């Protein structure tokens, strides 16, 4: 479904991604794990068009070369990016945030249905629908950011560290939701530092180090590997 081919990203002189290749197949959850500053967010931003790659290609659904497109057109093809730090619209109500996610859609009735579907998954958001989004807790904001992306009915969902800064119990429920929306058909590329949670949710994974993919394979294999256990799961 998504094929990242030999992608490089530069920020001025900084070479943040050095020829990264990665595949996501329809229906999968794929995890991308790595330590701070290794280029995880840069990769997601390259896919969604916020930071166009300096080299390489990104192909979506076999035919669309998306690495030259502006972000709003990439969204239109069905790729939703939940950025690191959530970036909810703090000046909007909860419901307006969700409607912003449905900006490109014109099917009013189905938008209303999806809103109810979201409220079914996150009853908290329903209770707070008319409240300013700035008043939500960190966990609720993360739920809102994911929900807002889902309102666009994306084919592919890019999640950047959804567990960041959240209490373990909230992380559990976020990951439960991620599996739930995957079961309902969304394909997910999940970026995490929390390798344990991410690899348990995903079928396959990639490990990134200083802008390069250093390992890849089924999650079970990665979880069993000595390197992952040492560096990312904190075992000795």
């Amino acid at each position, binding site marked *: 479904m998504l094929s990242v081919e030999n992608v490089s990203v530069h920020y001025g002189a900084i070479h943040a991604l050095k020829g990264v290749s990665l595949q996501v197949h329809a229906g999968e959850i794929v995890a991308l794990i790595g330590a701070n500053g290794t280029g995880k967010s840069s990769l997601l931003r390259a896919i969604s068009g916020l930071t166009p790659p300096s080299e390489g290609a990104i192909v979506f659904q076999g035919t669309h070369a998306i690495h030259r497109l502006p972000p*709003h057109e990439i*969204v239109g093809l069905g790729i939703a990016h939940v950025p690191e730090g959530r970036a909810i619209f703090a*000046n*909007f109500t909860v419901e307006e945030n969700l409607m912003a996610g449905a*900006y*490109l859609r014109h099917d009013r009735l189905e938008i209303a249905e999806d809103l109810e579907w979201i409220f079914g998954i996150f009853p908290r958001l329903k209770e707070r629908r008319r409240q300013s989004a700035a008043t939500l807790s960190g966990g609720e904001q993360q739920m809102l950011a994911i929900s807002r992306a889902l309102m*666009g009915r994306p084919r592919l969902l890019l999640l950047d560290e959804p567990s960041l800064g959240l209490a373990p119990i909230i992380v559990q429920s976020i990951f439960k939701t991620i599996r739930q929306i995957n079961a309902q058909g969304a394909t997910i590329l999940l970026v995490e530092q929390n390798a344990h949670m991410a690899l348990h949710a995903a079928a396959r994974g990639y490990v990134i180090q200083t802008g390069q993919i250093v390992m890849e394979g089924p999650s079970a294999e990665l979880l069993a590997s000595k390197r992952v256990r040492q560096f990312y799961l904190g075992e000795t």
Partner: protein
Amino acid sequence: MELFLQQLLQGFKFGSIYALIALGYTMVYGVLRLINFAHGDVFMLGAMLSIFFARWTGWGTRPSWLALAGILALAMAACALIGALIERLAYRPLRNASRLSLLITAIGVSLFIENAGQLPGVFGATPRAFPSLVETRPWITWGTLTISNVEALVIGVSLALTGALHFFVQRTRIGLAMRAVAFDFRTASLMGIHVNRVIGWTFMLGSALAGAAGVLYGLSYPAIDPLSGFLPGIKAFVAAVLGGIGSIPGAFVGGIIIGEAETLTAGYLSSTYKDAIAFLILIVVLLVKPSGLLGRKVVEKV
């Protein structure tokens, strides 16, 4: 007492015109964090072009409500186009430049319109007479207090347009996109919002309102020259800051306060100070409450 009420009414009328101009300042500031100094000149163009529209259509010689509505529509459409053009040619190429470059460009656009307008082949420097599109007559009389049809019209049109804009921005899909862009370009683009297009719409809307203000102004001050936009533009800018820049209801309230303040100054102090009062208010606001009356705490965009 009657005199005072008559003054208040007069102030409210001019205030409504400042309010309409202030809306454009506030909207553009909202999306670009730019004080669009050319906005007062777009207002002037609205008034100036109306003189020509009235001549070409012949509506200037046969005063009627329909003629007025027609000129209002033409002025708004023309200014919307001009606003879009200014954004496209002057501001869009600087989208990733510093805000200072943008500000200097805005001042440049303003100087260009004011000075090119004074060329003999363009509008010339001598004031042109604004046609009397409606005959002024008393509309309501209470004792000695009279509200004329023009006063009622100016206030009514500007209230209606402000209300419509508020509804548009708060309740429609495009309004939502404008508010999203005002919050953050990147996040807005991740919603599928075409940021540049939305910025263009914002300029068109704000400029159309300035065009309407130009016509309403012409009905009260029927002599228009290429510099006519300068003072009203600055006063409307002060109104936007006073109300809280970025806030639509704030722009309206700010406009009314400036209109009242200058009319009362002219009436009870001296008309010499009439144009200075806006600057005094600006200084006080910046010292006491820079976020304005209805403004939110200003969050810096990153």
